[in-house]
């Protein structure tokens, strides 16, 4: 039985058989391609189309060419949102790395209970950002929360401090929440990089008398270039798209100073119902993210070295 079938295979394939294979292949991938086309590719093109219109929620859309874009470039609130998003992205990324890198070095060690610590550090990653924001809104509340009363009890502050009342305090409270939520994720990414460093190299450098920080600076960091770049890009792209935490924790913050770019799009599209202008803003975000992704591919490209 099996002999005949192998012989059959060796015969030159007839074109209609190959075509049947191709059709089957298309049928297998069809559901995925249809979904992605209808619910992703088409909406992207539709966004571009909408951005060239004045598009109210009800009533006829009206072609206005590039006017949404000219409006965008003279819109102070757009620049404010962009500026705030940039500030947040830089700050949160620095702090995430400041926590995640030492954590990764901690859980990379071969000691007892390391898997337990790793799991505990990672737990907040699997809960939703919305749940985490809500939880921290309560914890940061001045009357019923946890942090302010605790600091007062411990004598760290005189009286209770309202952590969400001023821009700076609210900003750093949100950063703390995001660190709690995300640091474990970045830690795992960095851990894969640390574990890929051959232990012989570390041993050799130790025998050569390299100090701890020398090993870090000249061995660990260069060998982790790709992992660091990946963690950096994931953190930056994630932060640029931040919305939940500002919406839930401060509703845009004291004096509306915490409107991130996605928050501004949501406000323009679904509060003011300037759907066309919202689409133009979306295209701006899309362009920023695609540029970053291309930069990521460039950073992560193989230079032909063995690593």
């Amino acid at each position, binding site marked *: 039985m099996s002999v005949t079938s192998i012989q059959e295979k060796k015969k030159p394939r007839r074109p209609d058989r190959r075509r049947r*294979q191709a059709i089957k292949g298309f049928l297998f991938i069809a559901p995925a391609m249809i979904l992605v086309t209808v619910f992703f590719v088409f909406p992207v093109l539709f966004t571009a189309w909408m951005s060239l219109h004045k598009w109210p929620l009800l009533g006829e859309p009206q072609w206005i060419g590039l006017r949404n874009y000219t409006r965008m470039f003279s819109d102070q609130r757009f620049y404010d949102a962009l500026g705030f998003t940039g500030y947040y992205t830089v700050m949160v990324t620095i702090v995430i790395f400041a926590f995640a890198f030492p954590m990764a070095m901690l859980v990379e060690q071969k000691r007892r209970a390391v898997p337990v610590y790793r799991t505990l550090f990672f737990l907040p990653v699997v809960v939703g950002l919305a749940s985490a924001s809500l939880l921290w809104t309560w914890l940061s509340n001045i009357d019923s929360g946890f942090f302010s009363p605790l600091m007062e009890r411990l004598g760290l502050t005189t009286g209770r401090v309202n952590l969400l009342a001023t821009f700076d305090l609210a900003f750093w409270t949100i950063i703390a929440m995001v660190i709690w939520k995300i640091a474990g994720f970045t830690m795992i990414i960095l851990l894969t990089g640390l574990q890929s460093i051959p232990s012989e190299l570390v041993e050799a450098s130790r025998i050569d008398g390299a100090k701890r920080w020398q090993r870090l600076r000249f061995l660990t960091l260069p060998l982790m270039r790709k992992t660091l770049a990946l963690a950096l890009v994931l953190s930056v792209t994630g932060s640029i798209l931040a919305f939940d935490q500002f919406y839930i924790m401060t509703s845009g913050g004291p004096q509306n100073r915490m409107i991130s770019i996605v928050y501004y799009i949501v406000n323009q599209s679904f509060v003011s119902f300037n759907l066309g202008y919202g689409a133009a803003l979306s295209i701006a975000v899309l362009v920023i993210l695609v540029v970053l992704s291309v930069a990521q591919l460039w950073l992560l490209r193989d230079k032909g070295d063995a690593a």
Partner: protein
Amino acid sequence: MKTARARFERRRLGGAFAFHGSASVLSLLFLTPFIVAFLGSFRRGQEASSPPIPPWPTNGFSLDAYRTLDTFGSGILQHTLNSLIVSLATVVLTVLVSLLAGYGFSRYRFPLKNVLFILLMATLMIPFQSILTPLFIMLARMGLNNSLVGLILVYVTLQLPFSVFMMRNAFDAVPKEIEDAARVDGIGDIRLLTRVLLPLVMPGVATVAIFAFLNAWNEFLAALILLSSNDKYTLPVLMTAVRVGRLGSINWGAVQAGVVVMIIPCLIVFLLLQRYYMRGLTAGAVK
């Protein structure tokens, strides 16, 4: 000799002490918000709005916070059910569609195969936040606005690039001989896939399923925009109503209870299937 050895011992002990000391302090910091919310949610009526110091109930265990939570929207059961329907349907559809597509991309040759695969992966570059407006309008035209079905289709689509990638790799890892042997026995395509190959790619399916579940269960922005009537809200959207409060005052007990309801399934799923979750994460990291 002896002193050198003693010094070595002391340094080793000191290292272990420093390690476990810092690691347990960090663990405590990461755990505290969970513990405080969980214990705090069982405090009685008025106690729930005072600071959780100590976090556990001092006036006796009570479910007041959960009862208050139940008075929001259409009741907590309804909203938990909505979240469950959306998440489980997203899991089933994502697994089904990515299983087929992964198999197709792994085993069949057809024109434009690589172009289509790259197109699928390229959607990862585009933030879904930027296409919410057209999705909102499109779903309205299709009669799927304010419907869990519309939301599910959007969630499945968002899961596909990662899931198809995972499933294609899973099928690539299955030796072709197994398939050839089965074909010799005259088995059809569908039975080959479900009876022979599915058990072999089960770890990949688990990874795809767990990510689909967590992402759908936790997603907030799309649900906020695409669902407009109260009885359709998933848990995160319901909780914005709880967070806003009534008559200017927020019931913090209901907030704590809601957070617990939203968090527990995530933690259970993760702790049970941690291995598969981490595989997905590192597959993404290593590429």
